[in-house]
């Protein structure tokens, strides 16, 4: 899977055109400050979605726990600031689920505040044991996001996937959805994931993968490459545990070889440098963290030897 590079000048042009076309000058100015782009080395790195060829930036944004802030207005504004920084630094894919409490509402709040519905690659899930309820849950989620349609809908943790997948595939066939996927986390139900990847026309599979949890390297990632299925990576930083584990260790000199200024970028680049991976979705509540995460979408990526070195360095800690 080739990595395609979009120049920074192109990116700025696209962002400017989107802002102008949307004619939402005021909200644009309002979120320009928290979302100011960090100084990046080189072009934004993207990867092709295998089933369509569409380019997607390597780093997305998760919303589990971090965006579930309820009705707290100031916390919602902080989440909108995180989204602003994410978009300003080239991000597109935001992932959520009906299971994540108020996260969908908060994403919708942020998109309305920023006027960014057109920019976002909206990825959500169906999380419902009864197949008949699936369509109404999807519509409720769409209403919360405030988007005309979802780009990607996934069956959350394979819950009643036999009933939901036909519904999602029918939505895609009718042009009401662009991509269909399935998810799991923390290495669960990989046998079933494999079975679905082999038998169903899914566009994406979402699994957990990070420098210490590499089970998916054995079967899931090679199978995704073989079958032309995009891969979204959850738990890329083990909910921050990996950062807490390494933060007191000085950044090794080799980090400069892949243009990393911090451990978060190193750990994310380890993930997105795997050729089967389409996008990693770290979650955060902080603007400085999302900016640092987004630096993994720029600069050089580690080769196989350096990936092994990163893994062994972290394993030793």
């Amino acid at each position, binding site marked *: 899977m080739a990595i395609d590079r979009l120049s920074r000048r192109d990116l700025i042009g696209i962002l400017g055109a989107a802002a102008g076309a949307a004619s939402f000058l005021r909200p644009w100015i309002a979120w320009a400050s928290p979302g100011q782009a960090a100084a990046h080395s080189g072009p934004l790195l993207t990867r092709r979605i295998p089933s369509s060829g569409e380019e997607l930036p390597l780093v997305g944004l998760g919303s589990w*726990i*971090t965006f*579930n*802030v*309820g*009705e*707290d207005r100031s*916390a919602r504004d902080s989440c909108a600031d995180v989204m602003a920084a994410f978009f300003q630094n080239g991000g597109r894919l935001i992932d959520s689920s009906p*299971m*994540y*409490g*108020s996260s969908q509402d908060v994403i919708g709040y942020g998109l309305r505040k920023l006027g960014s519905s057109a920019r976002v690659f909206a990825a959500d899930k169906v999380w419902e044991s009864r197949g008949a309820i699936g369509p109404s849950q999807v519509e409720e989620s769409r209403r919360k996001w405030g988007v005309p349609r979802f780009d990607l809908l996934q069956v959350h943790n394979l819950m009643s996937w036999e009933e939901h997948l036909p519904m999602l595939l029918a939505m895609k066939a009718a042009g009401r959805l662009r991509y269909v996927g399935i998810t799991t986390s*923390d*290495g*669960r*139900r990989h046998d079933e994931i494999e079975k679905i990847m082999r038998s169903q026309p899914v566009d994406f599979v979402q699994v957990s993968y990070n420098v210490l949890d590499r089970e998916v390297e054995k079967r899931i990632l090679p199978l995704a490459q073989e079958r032309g299925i995009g891969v979204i990576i959850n738990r890329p930083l083990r*909910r921050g545990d990996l950062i807490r584990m390494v933060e007191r260790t000085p950044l090794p000199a080799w980090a400069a070889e892949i243009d990393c200024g911090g451990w978060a970028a190193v750990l994310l680049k380890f993930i997105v440098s795997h050729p089967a991976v389409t996008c990693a979705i770290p979650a955060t*509540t902080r603007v400085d963290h999302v900016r640092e995460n987004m630096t993994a979408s720029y600069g050089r990526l580690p080769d196989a030897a350096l990936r092994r070195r990163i893994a062994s360095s972290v394993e030793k800690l």
Partner: protein
Amino acid sequence: MSEWWTYRLRDFLLFSPRTYFRLFELYNAAIWPAQLVALGLGVWILLLLRRPSVSRGRWLSAILAASWLWVAVAFHMKRYTTINWTAVYFGWGFALEAALWTGLGVFGRLTWTRPPDLARRVGLGLFVFALALEPCVGLLFGREWRQGQILGVAPDPTAVATLGVLLAASGRGRGVLAVIPALWCAVSFATLLAIMAPEAWMMAAVGIVAATAVLSARRQKSRHNAARSAA
């Protein structure tokens, strides 16, 4: 839930510690000055517990029923549910406890007598802790006083105080009233443990103290009955 053995407590967590405690801050601001009324009712319960009787027990039951119903609706169903979809079920559990206090305590035949000294002391201690100390516990861990949990309007002190009342006045029919408060202590312990809040151990300690007091009181009572039979 397949592969259930692979799940950890943290896997069920939906919100951050900051969001959880901020919820209490916003809730306290929204219901002010209901906290003052709740504290006044708490002091009244303490006075009623001095000499338990049927009529006093009815007043006490009515206050506790109102408190559980308030927490069910105003906290669980209206606010906690915005960050935790399981809060609806907690709300129904709290409403059931309110119904039990109304049915058994206000209109029923719940009896109120003075229990053995140990249970009474422990019960009063738990009640005073829930009334006066629990709202301030967060300060010890660097949180703001605005995030304090007040007896009668917040779930944890209401559950702890209810266990205290049930220990401080013995009589028939109270076992069923202790089930939901005890379960809530377990739920709250798990939640606080998952968000790594030190208060988790406080809730565990409350459960252990209450259970020990119940067992000791039972032993004390059976010894007393045995001595009477022998005499």
